[in-house]
Protein backbone atom coordinates (compact mmCIF):
# COMPACT_ATOMS: atom_id res chain seq x y z
CA UNK A 1 0.00 0.00 0.00
CA UNK A 2 1.33 3.42 -0.96
CA UNK A 3 1.28 5.72 2.03
CA UNK A 4 3.80 8.23 0.80
CA UNK A 5 3.28 11.81 1.98
CA UNK A 6 3.50 14.57 -0.66
CA UNK A 7 4.39 17.97 0.79
CA UNK A 8 2.37 20.90 -0.57
CA UNK A 9 2.01 24.61 0.34
CA UNK A 10 -1.12 25.80 2.16
CA UNK A 11 -1.79 28.22 -0.74
CA UNK A 12 -1.92 25.41 -3.31
CA UNK A 13 -4.32 23.10 -1.47
CA UNK A 14 -7.30 24.05 -3.66
CA UNK A 15 -5.35 23.41 -6.87
CA UNK A 16 -3.95 20.12 -5.63
CA UNK A 17 -7.35 18.91 -4.44
CA UNK A 18 -8.92 19.93 -7.74
CA UNK A 19 -6.32 17.92 -9.66
CA UNK A 20 -6.98 14.83 -7.57
CA UNK A 21 -10.74 15.26 -7.98
CA UNK A 22 -10.32 15.31 -11.78
CA UNK A 23 -8.18 12.18 -11.55
CA UNK A 24 -11.05 10.39 -9.79
CA UNK A 25 -9.81 10.43 -6.20
CA UNK A 26 -12.25 10.61 -3.29
CA UNK A 27 -11.50 12.23 0.06
CA UNK A 28 -10.61 9.68 2.75
CA UNK A 29 -9.77 11.90 5.68
CA UNK A 30 -8.18 15.13 6.89
CA UNK A 31 -6.36 15.47 10.18
CA UNK A 32 -4.11 17.83 12.07
CA UNK A 33 -1.03 17.27 14.23
CA UNK A 34 0.47 19.94 16.50
CA UNK A 35 4.10 20.83 15.83
CA UNK A 36 6.04 23.79 17.33
CA UNK A 37 4.43 27.09 16.19
CA UNK A 38 2.48 25.34 13.43
CA UNK A 39 0.12 22.53 12.45
CA UNK A 40 0.86 19.61 10.21
CA UNK A 41 -2.20 18.74 8.16
CA UNK A 42 -2.61 15.42 6.36
CA UNK A 43 -5.22 15.14 3.61
CA UNK A 44 -5.72 11.57 2.33
CA UNK A 45 -7.31 10.79 -1.02
CA UNK A 46 -8.14 7.36 -2.39
CA UNK A 47 -8.90 5.80 -5.74
CA UNK A 48 -9.81 2.10 -5.57
CA UNK A 49 -7.09 0.79 -3.26
CA UNK A 50 -4.53 3.48 -4.13
CA UNK A 51 -3.84 6.33 -1.69
CA UNK A 52 -2.33 9.79 -2.12
CA UNK A 53 -1.60 11.89 0.95
CA UNK A 54 -0.87 15.59 1.01
CA UNK A 55 1.08 17.03 3.91
CA UNK A 56 0.76 20.73 4.65
CA UNK A 57 2.67 22.71 7.26
CA UNK A 58 0.42 25.56 8.32
CA UNK A 59 1.81 28.35 10.57
CA UNK A 60 -0.31 28.79 13.69
CA UNK A 61 -1.56 32.28 12.77
CA UNK A 62 -2.31 31.47 9.13
CA UNK A 63 -5.65 30.49 7.57
CA UNK A 64 -6.16 27.73 5.03
CA UNK A 65 -8.93 27.50 2.45
CA UNK A 66 -11.58 24.87 2.90
CA UNK A 67 -11.77 22.18 0.21
CA UNK A 68 -15.53 21.75 0.72
CA UNK A 69 -16.13 23.53 -2.62
CA UNK A 70 -14.40 20.53 -4.25
CA UNK A 71 -15.21 17.77 -1.76
CA UNK A 72 -18.45 18.75 0.07
CA UNK A 73 -17.96 15.88 2.54
CA UNK A 74 -14.81 17.61 3.88
CA UNK A 75 -16.97 19.73 6.19
CA UNK A 76 -16.95 17.14 8.96
CA UNK A 77 -13.14 16.79 9.00
CA UNK A 78 -12.53 20.54 8.76
CA UNK A 79 -14.91 21.32 11.59
CA UNK A 80 -13.13 18.68 13.67
CA UNK A 81 -9.70 20.21 12.97
CA UNK A 82 -11.06 23.63 13.89
CA UNK A 83 -12.78 22.49 17.09
CA UNK A 84 -10.01 20.27 18.48
CA UNK A 85 -6.85 22.02 17.25
CA UNK A 86 -7.97 25.57 16.48
CA UNK A 87 -6.91 25.33 12.83
CA UNK A 88 -8.32 28.39 11.04
CA UNK A 89 -10.20 27.26 7.95
CA UNK A 90 -12.10 29.71 5.77
CA UNK A 91 -15.23 29.11 3.69
CA UNK A 92 -16.38 25.73 5.07
CA UNK A 93 -19.73 24.89 3.43
CA UNK A 94 -21.33 23.75 6.71
CA UNK A 95 -19.49 25.67 9.42
CA UNK A 96 -20.45 24.65 12.95
CA UNK A 97 -18.34 27.59 14.24
CA UNK A 98 -16.77 25.61 17.04
CA UNK A 99 -19.93 23.73 18.05
CA UNK A 100 -19.36 20.35 16.36
CA UNK A 101 -17.75 18.93 19.48
CA UNK A 102 -18.99 19.84 22.93
CA UNK A 103 -15.66 20.06 24.72
CA UNK A 104 -15.13 21.29 28.28
CA UNK A 105 -12.21 23.46 27.20
CA UNK A 106 -11.78 25.24 23.88
CA UNK A 107 -9.49 23.59 21.28
CA UNK A 108 -8.16 20.93 23.70
CA UNK A 109 -5.58 19.49 21.28
CA UNK A 110 -3.97 22.88 20.53
Amino acid at each position, binding site marked *: *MNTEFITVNPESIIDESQKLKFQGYHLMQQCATRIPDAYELIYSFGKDLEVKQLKITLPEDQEISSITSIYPCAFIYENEMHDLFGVQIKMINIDFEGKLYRTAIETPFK
Partner: protein
Amino acid sequence: MSTRSVIPFGPQHPVLPEPIHLDLVMEDEKVVEAIPSIGFIHRGLEKLVDKKDFNEMVYVAERICGICSLGHGLGYSEAVEHIMDIEVPARARFLRTIWSELSRVHSHLLWLGLLADAFGFESLYMDCWRLREDALDMFEASTGGRVIFSVMKVGGIRRDVSDEMLKDFYQRINRMEEELKAISKPFLTDMAVQTRLRGVGVLTAEQADALGCAGPFLRASGIARDIRSTGYCAYGDIDFEPIISTEGDSYARTECRIKEIFQAFDIIRQCIDKMPKDGEIEVPVKGMPNGEYMMRIEQPRGEALYYVKANGTKFIDRMRVRTPTFANLSGLVETLKGCDLADVPILVLTIDPCISCTER
Protein backbone atom coordinates in the same frame (compact mmCIF):
# COMPACT_ATOMS: atom_id res chain seq x y z
CA MET B 1 -43.84 25.87 -1.89
CA SER B 2 -45.05 24.43 1.41
CA THR B 3 -44.01 25.95 4.70
CA ARG B 4 -40.76 24.52 5.97
CA SER B 5 -40.33 23.36 9.52
CA VAL B 6 -37.42 21.89 11.46
CA ILE B 7 -37.84 18.68 13.44
CA PRO B 8 -35.07 17.68 15.85
CA PHE B 9 -34.16 13.97 15.65
CA GLY B 10 -32.11 12.64 18.55
CA PRO B 11 -29.81 12.71 20.44
CA GLN B 12 -32.18 10.36 22.33
CA HIS B 13 -34.30 8.18 20.05
CA PRO B 14 -35.51 4.55 20.26
CA VAL B 15 -33.39 3.48 17.24
CA LEU B 16 -30.27 5.20 18.49
CA PRO B 17 -28.17 3.29 21.01
CA GLU B 18 -25.81 6.26 21.08
CA PRO B 19 -26.42 9.99 20.80
CA ILE B 20 -26.41 11.84 17.48
CA HIS B 21 -28.60 14.81 16.64
CA LEU B 22 -30.11 15.67 13.26
CA ASP B 23 -31.99 18.83 12.40
CA LEU B 24 -34.50 17.66 9.79
CA VAL B 25 -35.74 20.47 7.56
CA MET B 26 -39.20 19.32 6.45
CA GLU B 27 -41.65 20.23 3.73
CA ASP B 28 -44.85 18.46 4.77
CA GLU B 29 -43.76 14.83 5.33
CA LYS B 30 -40.61 15.03 3.17
CA VAL B 31 -37.12 15.74 4.46
CA VAL B 32 -35.50 18.52 2.45
CA GLU B 33 -32.25 18.73 4.33
CA ALA B 34 -30.60 17.12 7.36
CA ILE B 35 -27.89 18.81 9.42
CA PRO B 36 -25.97 16.47 11.75
CA SER B 37 -24.53 17.38 15.14
CA ILE B 38 -22.20 15.16 17.11
CA GLY B 39 -20.01 15.76 20.13
CA PHE B 40 -22.23 14.48 22.94
CA ILE B 41 -19.75 11.77 23.97
CA HIS B 42 -16.40 13.03 22.77
CA ARG B 43 -13.75 11.59 25.08
CA GLY B 44 -10.51 12.86 23.55
CA LEU B 45 -8.90 9.40 23.53
CA GLU B 46 -6.43 10.47 20.83
CA LYS B 47 -5.02 13.03 23.28
CA LEU B 48 -3.90 10.22 25.62
CA VAL B 49 -0.74 9.79 23.51
CA ASP B 50 0.71 12.42 25.89
CA LYS B 51 0.28 10.10 28.89
CA LYS B 52 0.37 6.51 27.60
CA ASP B 53 3.36 4.95 25.87
CA PHE B 54 3.05 3.34 22.45
CA ASN B 55 2.41 -0.13 23.93
CA GLU B 56 -0.27 1.08 26.33
CA MET B 57 -2.00 2.93 23.49
CA VAL B 58 -3.16 -0.46 22.14
CA TYR B 59 -5.54 -0.65 25.13
CA VAL B 60 -6.68 2.93 24.58
CA ALA B 61 -7.38 2.17 20.91
CA GLU B 62 -9.45 -0.89 21.91
CA ARG B 63 -11.59 1.31 24.11
CA ILE B 64 -12.67 3.55 21.25
CA CYS B 65 -15.65 1.28 20.69
CA GLY B 66 -17.31 -1.73 22.29
CA ILE B 67 -18.26 -3.41 19.01
CA CYS B 68 -15.15 -3.09 16.86
CA SER B 69 -12.66 -2.88 19.73
CA LEU B 70 -10.52 -5.68 18.33
CA GLY B 71 -10.19 -3.89 14.99
CA HIS B 72 -9.07 -0.66 16.63
CA GLY B 73 -6.34 -2.47 18.55
CA LEU B 74 -5.35 -4.27 15.36
CA GLY B 75 -5.24 -1.14 13.18
CA TYR B 76 -3.12 0.78 15.68
CA SER B 77 -0.75 -2.17 16.24
CA GLU B 78 -0.28 -2.68 12.49
CA ALA B 79 0.51 1.02 12.02
CA VAL B 80 3.23 0.89 14.71
CA GLU B 81 4.53 -2.42 13.32
CA HIS B 82 4.93 -0.83 9.88
CA ILE B 83 6.85 2.10 11.40
CA MET B 84 9.13 -0.26 13.34
CA ASP B 85 9.44 -2.68 10.42
CA ILE B 86 8.19 -5.60 12.50
CA GLU B 87 7.09 -8.78 10.77
CA VAL B 88 4.33 -10.48 12.74
CA PRO B 89 4.54 -14.33 12.86
CA ALA B 90 2.18 -16.19 10.51
CA ARG B 91 0.16 -17.89 13.26
CA ALA B 92 -0.53 -14.51 14.87
CA ARG B 93 -1.60 -13.05 11.52
CA PHE B 94 -4.11 -15.87 10.99
CA LEU B 95 -5.50 -15.59 14.51
CA ARG B 96 -5.85 -11.82 14.04
CA THR B 97 -7.83 -12.57 10.87
CA ILE B 98 -10.09 -15.09 12.62
CA TRP B 99 -10.88 -12.61 15.40
CA SER B 100 -11.45 -9.81 12.88
CA GLU B 101 -14.01 -11.94 11.04
CA LEU B 102 -15.67 -12.98 14.30
CA SER B 103 -15.99 -9.25 15.03
CA ARG B 104 -17.69 -8.82 11.67
CA VAL B 105 -20.11 -11.66 12.48
CA HIS B 106 -21.10 -10.23 15.84
CA SER B 107 -21.28 -6.64 14.59
CA HIS B 108 -23.49 -7.51 11.61
CA LEU B 109 -25.75 -9.72 13.74
CA LEU B 110 -26.11 -6.91 16.24
CA TRP B 111 -27.04 -4.56 13.41
CA LEU B 112 -29.55 -7.02 11.91
CA GLY B 113 -31.18 -7.31 15.33
CA LEU B 114 -31.42 -3.53 15.68
CA LEU B 115 -32.92 -3.27 12.19
CA ALA B 116 -35.53 -5.93 13.00
CA ASP B 117 -36.32 -4.07 16.21
CA ALA B 118 -36.65 -0.77 14.29
CA PHE B 119 -39.34 -2.13 12.01
CA GLY B 120 -41.08 -3.94 14.84
CA PHE B 121 -40.10 -7.57 14.16
CA GLU B 122 -39.26 -8.47 17.76
CA SER B 123 -38.82 -12.24 17.38
CA LEU B 124 -36.35 -11.71 14.54
CA TYR B 125 -34.45 -9.23 16.70
CA MET B 126 -34.20 -11.82 19.49
CA ASP B 127 -33.05 -14.52 17.04
CA CYS B 128 -30.25 -12.31 15.69
CA TRP B 129 -28.97 -11.43 19.15
CA ARG B 130 -29.23 -15.02 20.34
CA LEU B 131 -27.05 -16.11 17.44
CA ARG B 132 -24.64 -13.25 18.18
CA GLU B 133 -24.11 -14.72 21.65
CA ASP B 134 -22.33 -17.69 20.01
CA ALA B 135 -19.78 -15.34 18.48
CA LEU B 136 -19.28 -13.61 21.84
CA ASP B 137 -18.86 -17.01 23.53
CA MET B 138 -16.12 -17.85 21.04
CA PHE B 139 -14.42 -14.56 21.83
CA GLU B 140 -14.66 -15.25 25.54
CA ALA B 141 -13.22 -18.74 25.15
CA SER B 142 -10.29 -17.62 23.01
CA THR B 143 -9.41 -14.16 24.38
CA GLY B 144 -10.98 -14.05 27.83
CA GLY B 145 -13.16 -11.04 26.97
CA ARG B 146 -16.54 -10.43 25.40
CA VAL B 147 -16.27 -6.70 24.70
CA ILE B 148 -12.70 -5.55 25.34
CA PHE B 149 -10.30 -8.34 24.43
CA SER B 150 -6.81 -6.99 25.23
CA VAL B 151 -5.34 -9.72 23.05
CA MET B 152 -3.61 -7.50 20.51
CA LYS B 153 -0.09 -6.16 21.04
CA VAL B 154 2.58 -4.50 18.99
CA GLY B 155 4.55 -7.41 17.52
CA GLY B 156 1.83 -10.07 17.62
CA ILE B 157 -0.88 -11.32 19.96
CA ARG B 158 -1.03 -12.15 23.65
CA ARG B 159 -2.83 -15.50 23.60
CA ASP B 160 -2.59 -18.57 21.41
CA VAL B 161 -5.61 -20.73 20.62
CA SER B 162 -5.36 -24.52 20.99
CA ASP B 163 -6.09 -26.87 18.10
CA GLU B 164 -9.00 -28.37 20.07
CA MET B 165 -10.58 -24.94 20.42
CA LEU B 166 -10.13 -24.25 16.71
CA LYS B 167 -11.88 -27.55 15.90
CA ASP B 168 -14.70 -26.50 18.19
CA PHE B 169 -14.86 -23.13 16.41
CA TYR B 170 -15.18 -24.96 13.09
CA GLN B 171 -18.19 -26.93 14.31
CA ARG B 172 -19.80 -23.93 15.96
CA ILE B 173 -19.44 -21.89 12.78
CA ASN B 174 -21.09 -24.62 10.73
CA ARG B 175 -23.96 -24.67 13.21
CA MET B 176 -24.25 -20.85 13.17
CA GLU B 177 -24.29 -20.88 9.40
CA GLU B 178 -27.32 -23.18 9.35
CA GLU B 179 -29.13 -20.98 11.87
CA LEU B 180 -28.28 -17.83 9.91
CA LYS B 181 -29.81 -19.33 6.77
CA ALA B 182 -33.12 -19.54 8.62
CA ILE B 183 -32.79 -16.04 10.15
CA SER B 184 -31.81 -14.35 6.90
CA LYS B 185 -34.89 -15.62 5.05
CA PRO B 186 -37.37 -13.10 6.53
CA PHE B 187 -34.90 -10.25 5.99
CA LEU B 188 -34.56 -11.08 2.31
CA THR B 189 -38.01 -12.40 1.36
CA ASP B 190 -40.65 -11.18 3.84
CA MET B 191 -43.08 -8.81 2.13
CA ALA B 192 -43.49 -6.49 5.13
CA VAL B 193 -39.72 -6.18 5.58
CA GLN B 194 -39.17 -5.46 1.90
CA THR B 195 -41.82 -2.73 1.97
CA ARG B 196 -39.74 -0.90 4.57
CA LEU B 197 -36.39 -1.42 2.81
CA ARG B 198 -36.78 -1.60 -0.97
CA GLY B 199 -36.20 1.69 -2.78
CA VAL B 200 -35.65 3.55 0.51
CA GLY B 201 -32.60 5.85 0.76
CA VAL B 202 -31.05 5.11 -2.62
CA LEU B 203 -27.42 6.19 -2.99
CA THR B 204 -25.92 5.81 -6.46
CA ALA B 205 -22.37 4.53 -7.01
CA GLU B 206 -21.25 8.00 -8.13
CA GLN B 207 -22.71 9.63 -5.03
CA ALA B 208 -21.26 7.02 -2.67
CA ASP B 209 -17.80 7.37 -4.18
CA ALA B 210 -17.87 11.18 -4.27
CA LEU B 211 -19.01 11.36 -0.65
CA GLY B 212 -16.19 9.06 0.49
CA CYS B 213 -18.52 6.43 1.95
CA ALA B 214 -17.15 3.18 3.34
CA GLY B 215 -18.00 -0.44 4.05
CA PRO B 216 -21.27 -2.21 3.24
CA PHE B 217 -22.91 1.24 2.87
CA LEU B 218 -20.56 1.85 -0.10
CA ARG B 219 -20.54 -1.68 -1.51
CA ALA B 220 -24.36 -1.80 -1.54
CA SER B 221 -24.13 0.94 -4.19
CA GLY B 222 -22.04 -1.29 -6.43
CA ILE B 223 -18.47 -0.25 -5.61
CA ALA B 224 -16.25 -3.24 -4.86
CA ARG B 225 -13.89 -1.46 -2.46
CA ASP B 226 -12.89 -3.73 0.40
CA ILE B 227 -9.63 -2.93 2.19
CA ARG B 228 -9.13 -6.61 3.03
CA SER B 229 -8.12 -6.92 -0.63
CA THR B 230 -4.85 -5.11 0.24
CA GLY B 231 -3.86 -8.35 2.00
CA TYR B 232 -3.10 -7.12 5.52
CA CYS B 233 -3.06 -9.74 8.34
CA ALA B 234 -3.61 -13.08 6.55
CA TYR B 235 -6.13 -11.81 3.99
CA GLY B 236 -3.48 -12.14 1.29
CA ASP B 237 -3.61 -15.94 1.77
CA ILE B 238 -7.41 -16.13 1.73
CA ASP B 239 -9.70 -16.51 -1.29
CA PHE B 240 -12.53 -14.02 -1.18
CA GLU B 241 -14.17 -11.36 -3.32
CA PRO B 242 -15.78 -8.13 -2.05
CA ILE B 243 -19.54 -8.51 -1.73
CA ILE B 244 -21.50 -5.89 -3.62
CA SER B 245 -25.05 -5.08 -4.54
CA THR B 246 -26.16 -2.62 -7.19
CA GLU B 247 -29.48 -1.19 -5.99
CA GLY B 248 -27.94 1.15 -3.40
CA ASP B 249 -31.08 1.10 -1.21
CA SER B 250 -31.68 -0.07 2.35
CA TYR B 251 -32.50 -3.58 1.16
CA ALA B 252 -29.15 -3.78 -0.68
CA ARG B 253 -27.30 -2.74 2.51
CA THR B 254 -29.08 -5.46 4.46
CA GLU B 255 -28.34 -8.05 1.79
CA CYS B 256 -24.65 -7.07 1.69
CA ARG B 257 -24.27 -7.44 5.44
CA ILE B 258 -26.02 -10.83 5.51
CA LYS B 259 -23.77 -12.11 2.71
CA GLU B 260 -20.73 -10.74 4.53
CA ILE B 261 -21.59 -12.87 7.58
CA PHE B 262 -21.64 -15.99 5.40
CA GLN B 263 -18.37 -14.84 3.85
CA ALA B 264 -16.86 -14.31 7.32
CA PHE B 265 -17.72 -17.93 8.22
CA ASP B 266 -15.94 -19.07 5.06
CA ILE B 267 -12.86 -16.93 5.79
CA ILE B 268 -12.63 -18.30 9.35
CA ARG B 269 -12.79 -21.87 8.00
CA GLN B 270 -10.07 -21.05 5.46
CA CYS B 271 -7.90 -19.55 8.21
CA ILE B 272 -8.27 -22.63 10.41
CA ASP B 273 -7.32 -24.85 7.44
CA LYS B 274 -4.38 -22.76 6.25
CA MET B 275 -2.78 -21.47 9.45
CA PRO B 276 0.53 -22.95 10.67
CA LYS B 277 -0.15 -25.68 13.24
CA ASP B 278 2.36 -24.23 15.68
CA GLY B 279 4.91 -21.45 15.89
CA GLU B 280 5.51 -18.11 17.53
CA ILE B 281 2.64 -15.72 18.18
CA GLU B 282 4.75 -12.62 18.80
CA VAL B 283 8.17 -11.18 18.13
CA PRO B 284 10.17 -9.08 20.59
CA VAL B 285 9.84 -5.35 20.03
CA LYS B 286 13.19 -3.58 20.17
CA GLY B 287 13.70 0.17 20.30
CA MET B 288 11.16 2.95 19.93
CA PRO B 289 9.04 3.83 16.90
CA ASN B 290 10.24 6.70 14.75
CA GLY B 291 8.32 7.73 11.64
CA GLU B 292 4.75 7.92 10.46
CA TYR B 293 2.30 5.57 8.80
CA MET B 294 -1.33 5.50 7.72
CA MET B 295 -2.84 2.03 8.17
CA ARG B 296 -6.11 1.04 6.54
CA ILE B 297 -8.20 -1.89 7.72
CA GLU B 298 -11.71 -3.09 6.93
CA GLN B 299 -13.77 -2.86 10.08
CA PRO B 300 -17.29 -4.39 10.09
CA ARG B 301 -18.71 -0.93 9.35
CA GLY B 302 -16.15 -0.12 6.68
CA GLU B 303 -12.68 1.24 6.09
CA ALA B 304 -10.94 2.63 9.17
CA LEU B 305 -7.73 4.67 9.02
CA TYR B 306 -5.06 4.79 11.71
CA TYR B 307 -2.45 7.52 11.41
CA VAL B 308 0.47 7.20 13.79
CA LYS B 309 3.34 9.66 13.99
CA ALA B 310 6.20 8.67 16.28
CA ASN B 311 9.30 10.58 17.31
CA GLY B 312 11.75 7.95 18.56
CA THR B 313 10.60 8.15 22.21
CA LYS B 314 8.13 5.88 24.00
CA PHE B 315 5.39 8.51 23.62
CA ILE B 316 4.12 8.95 20.09
CA ASP B 317 3.28 12.42 18.70
CA ARG B 318 -0.10 11.67 17.24
CA MET B 319 -2.62 8.90 16.85
CA ARG B 320 -5.55 9.72 14.62
CA VAL B 321 -8.39 7.30 13.94
CA ARG B 322 -10.81 7.94 11.07
CA THR B 323 -13.70 5.60 11.66
CA PRO B 324 -16.19 4.40 9.03
CA THR B 325 -19.20 6.10 10.63
CA PHE B 326 -17.37 9.43 10.46
CA ALA B 327 -16.96 8.90 6.70
CA ASN B 328 -20.55 7.72 6.25
CA LEU B 329 -22.17 10.77 7.87
CA SER B 330 -21.99 12.70 4.57
CA GLY B 331 -23.65 9.77 2.77
CA LEU B 332 -26.35 9.61 5.44
CA VAL B 333 -27.17 13.31 4.98
CA GLU B 334 -27.49 12.71 1.23
CA THR B 335 -29.79 9.66 1.56
CA LEU B 336 -32.06 11.56 3.95
CA LYS B 337 -32.80 14.24 1.36
CA GLY B 338 -36.23 13.58 -0.11
CA CYS B 339 -37.16 10.69 2.16
CA ASP B 340 -40.34 10.42 4.24
CA LEU B 341 -40.11 11.33 7.92
CA ALA B 342 -41.18 7.76 8.79
CA ASP B 343 -38.13 6.36 6.95
CA VAL B 344 -35.57 8.48 8.83
CA PRO B 345 -34.98 5.94 11.65
CA ILE B 346 -34.40 3.10 9.16
CA LEU B 347 -32.03 5.23 7.09
CA VAL B 348 -30.02 6.31 10.11
CA LEU B 349 -29.69 2.64 11.00
CA THR B 350 -28.63 1.51 7.53
CA ILE B 351 -25.25 3.24 7.83
CA ASP B 352 -24.77 1.11 10.98
CA PRO B 353 -23.87 4.18 13.04
CA CYS B 354 -21.30 3.86 15.80
CA ILE B 355 -21.11 7.17 17.55
CA SER B 356 -18.49 6.08 20.10
CA CYS B 357 -16.17 5.32 17.18
CA THR B 358 -17.04 8.59 15.51
CA GLU B 359 -16.28 10.75 18.52
CA ARG B 360 -13.41 8.80 20.09
